């Protein structure tokens, strides 16, 4: 009996408070309306948000980092990545994809492609507003739809970008150093085969 009245009091308090208190989407305790009127208002994006992968390129669109090694396509749990390696005019395979399709109707945003890629070529985006008028074609994103610059990556995930750039620079230095020693070693004794790169 009393419990009912107390409950009615709480709902009435919330009802009235929703007109009086300022709207604050962040705190549920204080009362007041918590709804965000989505298309007009948005919550600030969280840096750690992960959705739908994209391919990065350095500088220009021709400089795709992806070397078409097919690792992500093999690792992708729902198998929604489809890659065809590019070839030059003589049919020699090139280190870049000719076709790189991701079916976003199938992609489950697990982020495994990003983890698996040894060349830092594919990353998870902040994109969530995708849609299409039908189920088969419009949500299959092709290579050119997926390409985004490193600047975009830096914008949406600055912390990750900094860490990855650091690592890449170190790797590059190490590689250069190894190259140098190999070359130095190769000068006096040309018959020894170059040691495999780390």
């Amino acid at each position: 009996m009393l419990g009912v009245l107390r409950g009615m009091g709480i709902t009435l308090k919330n009802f009235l408070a929703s007109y009086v208190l300022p709207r604050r989407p962040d705190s549920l305790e204080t009362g007041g309306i918590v709804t965000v009127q989505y298309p007009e208002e948005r919550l600030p994006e969280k840096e750690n948000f992960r959705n739908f992968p994209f391919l990065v390129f350095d500088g220009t669109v021709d400089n795709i980092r992806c070397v078409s090694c097919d690792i992500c396509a093999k690792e992708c749990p729902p198998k929604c990545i489809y890659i065809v390696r590019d070839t030059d005019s003589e049919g020699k395979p090139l280190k870049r994809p000719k076709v790189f399709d991701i079916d976003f109707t199938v992609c489950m945003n697990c982020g495994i492609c990003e983890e698996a890629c040894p060349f830092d070529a594919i990353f998870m985006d902040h994109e969530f507003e995708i849609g299409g008028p039908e189920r088969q074609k419009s949500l299959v994103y092709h290579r050119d739809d997926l390409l985004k610059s490193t600047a975009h990556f830096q914008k949406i995930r600055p912390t990750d970008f900094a860490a990855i750039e650091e690592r890449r620079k170190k790797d590059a230095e190490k590689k250069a150093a190894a190259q140098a020693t190999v070359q130095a070693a190769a000068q006096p004794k040309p018959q020894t085969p170059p040691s495999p790169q780390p």
Partner: protein
Amino acid sequence: MDPIFVNSKKALLNLFSAFLPDWTVVLVSIFISIGAIMVLGPFTMMYLTWFERKLLGRIQNRIGPNRVGIFGLLQPIADGVKMLTKEDIVPEGADKAVHLLAPIAIVIPSLLVFSVLPFGRNMTAVNLNIGVLFFLAVSATTTLSIFMGAWASRNKFSLLGGMRSVAQLVSYEVPMVLSVVPVILAAGSLSTVDLVESQGGWNGFKWFVFTPWGFTAFITFYLSGVAECNRTPFDIPEGESEIVAGFHTEYSGMKFALWYMAEFMNVFTVSGLTAVLFLGGWQGAPGLPSWAWFFIKTYALVFVMMWFRGTLPRLRVDQLMGLAWKFLLPLTLVNIFVAGLWFFIPDLRWRVGTAVALLGLTFWALMALNRTALPEKRTYEFAE
């Protein structure tokens, strides 16, 4: 301001009587009243859905519909269009004719009861001398339609919902009718118009709810009324989480909308009748027109019903039946006795004293007798 509707009807009739024979003018008069009700009923229903969604939204710290029109005011129209264009699915094993008839049949009593509600001074469509009885009898037939729909759907959930509905409505009909008795005793009439007029004293504030028996009857009548319209917390016939949607599981499109229409019109009419019986109907301070008083009171009661819905969880079937038979019924019976004594005892102090004492005692006794048996508190020796 007050007789604006009455005068406009008169003006219309004068217009017609200029070139129509007398007997057709009577027909026209009837059709104007019917037309007003036929517009008011569905219109009320449409905006009650909007009102409910707004209110529940606010209770839950949301905004509610705000996309179609300003404040979402066109939302009911958008819903109506959606309902009309939806596919009408009839289950294969259903009794097609009854399945179609049930939602139509339920709207009729819900509209009929509008005819005896006094919306304002001289604004009753039909001044029946058995108005209250008519209201209660006609609104009780909704059970039949609900059961028709439930049975014709050939679905276990629907049938369960229909059965529950019959059990609930039959039970709550008893305290509902019994709580009207003291009011009828006081007014000496069954006509809704007379009932309102008998509450006219004290500058329009001599409402029955201000007497001890009136107050008790108001509470019991209102609670039974909420149960009669299948509203939360008494909505076991449609309990979404238990039996999907009860009697309207198998309904879609406009037929489904008709069920809802009946429900919301019942909400309005039951609140209206409560206002008429206990809150003085269109009586009130002279500043406002009489129909405004009626609508203010009715919408206040509708608000409380929706407030219930925003607050209370659904009752269990046994709790529901217990409330009707073990609490409301004895209380209303005692209340009739108290009301009788009230008119028997001449001295004001004595009659208020006896009434309050008797009702308080009954309330306390019923609370004590109905206390749920709580199991002894257990201690768990090894739990910590």
